[in-house]
């Protein structure tokens, strides 16, 4: 799996499309999936693990490109749900990074491979 992370509107999806073409499956906005899962009372860390396991079993994990926002670089939110989302999204990203073959951080459209 390839993980592409970075702040909002940094050109992550464009980077993914330009660099991972044939045969790759790109899932954009993974952080929104994390958020939605939490809103529905689910556990996003568990969901992420299941997604990875499924991809590994199906034998297409190396073609999977996940794109997600980093949301932790701000002041602690006053709202409890927002605090929890920030925490969970960070933990999910840490998990995905630990499983990834490559981690690319995109800042201002420029990708830097950090793993």
């Amino acid at each position, binding site marked *: 799996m390839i*993980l592409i992370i970075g702040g909002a509107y940094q050109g992550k999806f464009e980077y993914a499309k330009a660099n991972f073409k044939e045969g790759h499956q790109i899932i954009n906005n993974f952080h929104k999936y994390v958020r939605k899962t939490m809103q529905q009372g689910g556990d996003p860390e568990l969901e992420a693990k299941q997604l990875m396991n499924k991809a590994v079993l199906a034998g297409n994990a190396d073609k999977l490109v996940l794109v997600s926002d980093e*949301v932790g*670089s*701000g002041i602690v939110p006053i709202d409890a749900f927002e605090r929890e989302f920030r925490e969970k*999204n960070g933990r999910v*990203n*840490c998990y995905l990074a630990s499983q990834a073959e490559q981690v690319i*951080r995109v800042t201002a459209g420029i990708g830097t491979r950090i*793993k």
Partner: protein
Amino acid sequence: MLHIVYGGSASGKSSYAESFAMSLQGEGRLLYIATMYPYKWNTTEIDPETMQRIERHRAMRADKGFDTVECYRHVEHIVAKRQDVLLLECMSNLLANEMYLEPDAEAVGIAGKAEVDTETVGMAGKAGATAEVDTETAGTDSKADSGMSETLSPVSKKIVQALIDLSTRVQELVIVTNDVFSDGGSLTYDESTREYVKNLAEINCALAREAATVTEVVCGIPVIVKKNHPMGK
């Protein structure tokens, strides 16, 4: 030597910093300077979310060989030995405490009280701290007075000087600090929060300038942004 580890919330910076501090340990102890103040949400009980965070960190560092020193502010009174490796977790809490804690709130917790010279802090519960003072190395020569410290706020200056001084008295000082600067908040937050953000930013800059290494942790991955040659800065 001074080392800075920074990252956003839930970036994996603490876990990395713990491993990094362990890798630096030599003959001395591993001291964990815990700065999170156990806020009480009523007169007796600690806020559950705060307690949960404290417990999470305690569990994470259990069996890693750290001795914990709970020091919520006035870190200039920490006394450690020349050979010790210190991990301070974390700067964002220390700054918040220095800025917002009530003057009569305790500066140290129960754990590791002996490592803080409580007599000079003017605290109750004086411990045998003086036994821990290494008189040979307890210099107060600080490098923080050079350059941009002129522009630091008083609270930033106090923290920066205390930590640079502490780093000269021990083997290694690893400081965990937070990236809170990328949510556009410097435009929209209230004045007090903006002041906090600005203080944390200038503390990070001043410490990073003096540090031997600066590492950003991104999704658990350490990205080295500064590494001095071992022979010089």
